[in-house]
């Protein structure tokens, strides 16, 4: 096992029960190594198992078969013994900021949840710093999530994750629920954050163009299996798998051809 890997997956399966007692494999035998400090993009259509893959890496759900290693240690052990330590290292941004913030809490309470082990003035200071970093005004603190726009909510979610000072960030389609112009703002923010993520990131998306803005290595997924993995250039210009070629050519031309 090489020491420079963040995550290592060995024959990982995740099955869900489906109709007629059969099993549906959301993740179907994945062998993969994510190297330290690299920004990865996981692309594929919906139902390809992207989200499940992200949840496996974040420890939200255990695999049904196979083993996931984080920094050389089994995920199961992290979850059993050092869950909080793991949480400090790996954070997740969810797809839908309308669902990932508790509607009953105000923004201050939501952000305080990300400050594990900080109290009093230190915590207050930390929150103020992070608000500035994600370009949110201070007066949003007493508001509840429903009073904010989608983009603002996603900033709150990002701020909450950043308060944990993570090394590795998993982004599960962080802009798919937002307007186009808001999406651009959030992408800019994420690009600015990239240097602080020493461990790297995993950007889950179905949009090749978005993925190309943030990631260095592409992983193409379909039906729970890894179709292809390669550097951005390889995937965009000399993809081997026909599915990857289809995926790359499917996005509408921009700039437009008249």
């Amino acid at each position, binding site marked *: 096992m090489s020491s420079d890997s963040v995550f290592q997956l060995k024959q990982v399966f995740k099955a869900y029960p489906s109709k007629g007692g059969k099993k549906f494999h959301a993740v179907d035998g994945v062998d993969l190594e994510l190297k330290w400090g690299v920004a990865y993009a996981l692309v594929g*259509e*919906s*139902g390809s198992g992207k989200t499940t893959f992200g949840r496996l890496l974040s420890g939200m759900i255990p695999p049904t078969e196979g083993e996931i290693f984080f920094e050389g240690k089994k995920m199961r052990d992290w979850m059993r013994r050092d869950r909080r330590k793991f949480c400090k290292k790996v954070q997740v941004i969810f797809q839908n900021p309308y669902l990932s913030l508790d509607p009953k809490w105000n923004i201050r309470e939501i952000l305080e949840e990300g400050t594990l082990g900080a109290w009093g003035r230190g915590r207050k200071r930390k929150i103020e710093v992070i608000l500035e970093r994600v370009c949110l005004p201070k007066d949003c603190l007493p508001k509840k999530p429903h009073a904010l726009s989608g983009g603002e909510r996603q900033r709150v979610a990002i701020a909450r994750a950043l308060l944990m000072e993570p090394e590795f960030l998993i982004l599960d389609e962080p802009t798919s629920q937002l*307007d*186009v*112009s808001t*999406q*651009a703002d959030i*992408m800019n923010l994420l690009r600015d954050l990239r240097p602080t993520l020493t461990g790297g990131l995993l950007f889950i998306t*179905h*949009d*090749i*163009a*978005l993925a*190309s*803005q943030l990631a260095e290595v592409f992983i193409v997924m379909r039906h729970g299996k890894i179709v292809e993995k390669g550097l*951005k*250039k390889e995937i*965009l210009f000399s993809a081997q798998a026909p599915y990857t070629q*289809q*995926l790359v*050519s*499917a*996005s*509408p*031309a*921009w*700039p*437009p051809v*008249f």
Partner: protein
Amino acid sequence: MNTLIDVKDLVLDYPKGPRFGPMSFSIAEKEAFGLVGESGAGKSTVALALMNVLKFKGGRKLKGKIERHCSAKEIAYVPQDPAAALDPLFTVGSQIRELGCSEVAILEALEKVKLPLTGMSLKSYPHELSGGMLQRLLIAMALVRRPKLLIADEPTSSLDVIHQAEIMKLFHAVRAEGISVLFITHHLPLAMDLCSRMAVLYEGKIVETGIPREIYEAPRHEFTRRLLEAVPVLEVA
């Protein structure tokens, strides 16, 4: 070219909250007209107003004029979320038959959208079909009555890129057949790809109208510029 629908100074008044309009635009025969804007800009409201199915509750009022040079039956609609547009309790086949068209017409329309529907899949329920298939099915259902205008409200926003490309191909084919399309979207590249003319909606008002090329090369409104800049560009380096 004959005008199919002419909207003049359309205003939607709410007792509280945002006011839409005034907006004016027209859709000619055999053209694809794009309506681009972000959520809350009033895109879907316009579509509903054109079809005359807008609900006037809570004191909402419609002013202005919508001139239709075609009958209401000649306007067809493709919704945003195909799964929500079909009744989950009935089979796909029975919902097609509800349209009251001959089987030949139905099969023809299905062929047009390249949906390989055999007797078996007509017996399937909406949830058993994928999003892309459902959307193609709805387009077929819209085409079956030989409409003059097809209103598509964000027809691809719940689909993946691959399915989106397929659906866009279909809309090109629909256009080539001489059916007008009102294409409502938040995704500028799609509108520019399909439409011959387009309008940009911002906060309930049309801020720009023109042919896509002009708008792309010389956007006049600040918001259009912002939209153009916001489209994610493939970064190769």
